[in-house]
């Protein structure tokens, strides 16, 4: 799978139209530098050779050199990773806390007006374009109310993190809420729930301890799916809020046709995604003992 990912990222480079080296260096590039770049990336050799060269360097965590910045892509990306990681973690926190909360309330009050309102909001959250939501939040909370900064990293200040995290988390909050609600309702119908109630446990204990733990399996699935939302939303959210992360780096690199950086950033996003999904699979083993048996068998 990971190898397949590298083939596709490489194909991105191989398919590039025009001369990326020249595009990146601009008109003032002297022939010698161009020649050196082409040789370095084996641009004059057959594609399989180019791929092998590139893959061998990749194995040493060498992503090449940024055309634009004239320094290693790895350096450029590593600098930007903490900002994106902070944003993604905060957004996940937002979506899990609000999503599970809203979903649980909707499930307890299933088929009530409150349930319909909350689920309506969830669909609205899923359908709202990330970048527009970001602009609207900035309009209300920064421009109009003046509570929070419009954009920027603010040296990592929490105030600066709030709007980007809510923006990036909103999309997924809706999904988590819907999934929590439906899996809670699914669990509620099962026999052990009736047993728990028959033991005289309170409704909140029944739901909180018995139902929620069982519903957790699908919630973890949704967090896994949410990883895709996070990674897709990152370039947009980071652009709206001038957040110095890998997403904004990618967008800028595409604009400048800095292909080594584009490849590196896309690769990092894909690896995080693949690894994230792997972690989700491992989480199942922790939550659901039945799956451990399935793996052993």
């Amino acid at each position: 799978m990971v190898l397949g990912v590298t083939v596709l990222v490489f194909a991105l480079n191989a398919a590039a139209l025009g001369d990326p080296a020249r595009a990146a260096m601009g008109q003032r590039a002297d022939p010698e530098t161009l020649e050196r770049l082409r040789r370095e990336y084996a641009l004059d050799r057959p594609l399989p050779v180019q791929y092998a060269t590139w893959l061998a360097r990749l194995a040493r965590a060498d992503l090449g050199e940024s055309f634009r910045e004239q320094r290693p892509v790895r350096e450029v990306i590593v600098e930007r990773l903490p900002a994106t990681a902070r944003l993604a973690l905060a957004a996940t926190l937002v979506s899990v806390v609000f999503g599970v909360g809203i979903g649980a309330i909707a499930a307890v009050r299933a088929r009530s007006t409150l349930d319909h309102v909350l689920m309506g909001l969830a669909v609205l959250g899923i359908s709202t374009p990330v970048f527009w939501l970001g602009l609207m939040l900035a309009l209300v909370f920064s421009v109009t109310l003046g509570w929070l900064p419009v954009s920027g990293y603010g040296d990592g200040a929490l105030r600066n993190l709030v709007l980007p995290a809510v923006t990036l988390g909103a999309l997924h909050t809706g999904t988590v809420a819907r999934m929590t609600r439906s899996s809670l309702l699914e669990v509620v119908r099962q026999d052990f729930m009736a047993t728990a109630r028959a033991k005289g446990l309170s409704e909140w204990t029944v739901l909180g301890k018995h139902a929620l733990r069982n519903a957790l399996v699908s919630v973890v699935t949704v967090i896994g799916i949410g990883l895709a939302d996070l990674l897709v939303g990152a370039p947009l959210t980071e652009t709206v809020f001038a957040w110095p992360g890998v997403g904004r780096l990618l967008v800028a690199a595409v604009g400048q046709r800095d292909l080594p950086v584009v490849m590196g950033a896309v690769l990092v996003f894909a690896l995080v995604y693949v690894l994230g999904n792997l972690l989700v699979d491992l989480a199942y083993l922790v939550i659901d003992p039945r799956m451990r048996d399935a793996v052993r068998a």
Partner: protein
Amino acid sequence: MPSARRPLSHHGFLAGAILVALFAGAALLAPVLAPEDPHAVASGGGATLEGPTASHPLGTDALGRDVLSRVLWGGRVSLAVGVGVEALVVVLGCVIGLLAGYFGGPVDAALMRITDVVMAFPSLVLAIGLIAVFEQPGLDKVFIVLVALGWTTIARVVRGEVLSLKTRDFVHAARALGGGHRAIMVRHLLPNALAPLLVAATIGVGGNMVAEAGLSFLGLGAQAPTISWGAMLADGQTFLASAPWVAVFPGAALLLAVLGMNLLGDGLRDLLDPRLRA
């Protein structure tokens, strides 16, 4: 879910259908409905960034262009990309899904491996990366990229349906009667996979619209003078404090159109998919 089997008693479906009809109607009739030429700049610079007034119900942008007219025309781009991309995606996805599901074995393994790899990327990130392949960004490139990456969902859906259908009696019967591979696939398997296909395609149209707007917002999609809601939003961000209407309305239009598509898709799923019926 309320056991709504008739379309008119399913509120979500109804709301979605109305929103989509409004959106499609407004987009198709934009030349008639738009009060002004969406490209016409204000003469003398008097009416730039003007708030909503009687003559410009949604205000004007930095060049004095009528925002309402631009929102209406932008809908055409959004609709064209959303539906156009999805049409090609459905054809591509059906062919790949049918081949993989029907023939199984190495064909299936190879095609699904490709699907897995494409799906191993967060979609928009790969789309952004692919734009770098072209020397200049543009709406046509967005179209190509979205088709190139969009077929995987449909292919998976169709393959799944075909796998469960191909062992059924009517398929055996068709084969016993001498039906060729193509006839069985196109005449027997595909029609029976139509319901989930329609659901996935409807939601896909909304996804394409968001993707186009997102890429255009990032400056990697539609370029001026093409009118795109995403590009309008990017312009609007610059004047967020002084002229918020420039950003508010194109985004609201996009939200309503996508919401309509999602509600319609969810509704179709409830109405069409027998497995979800209680």
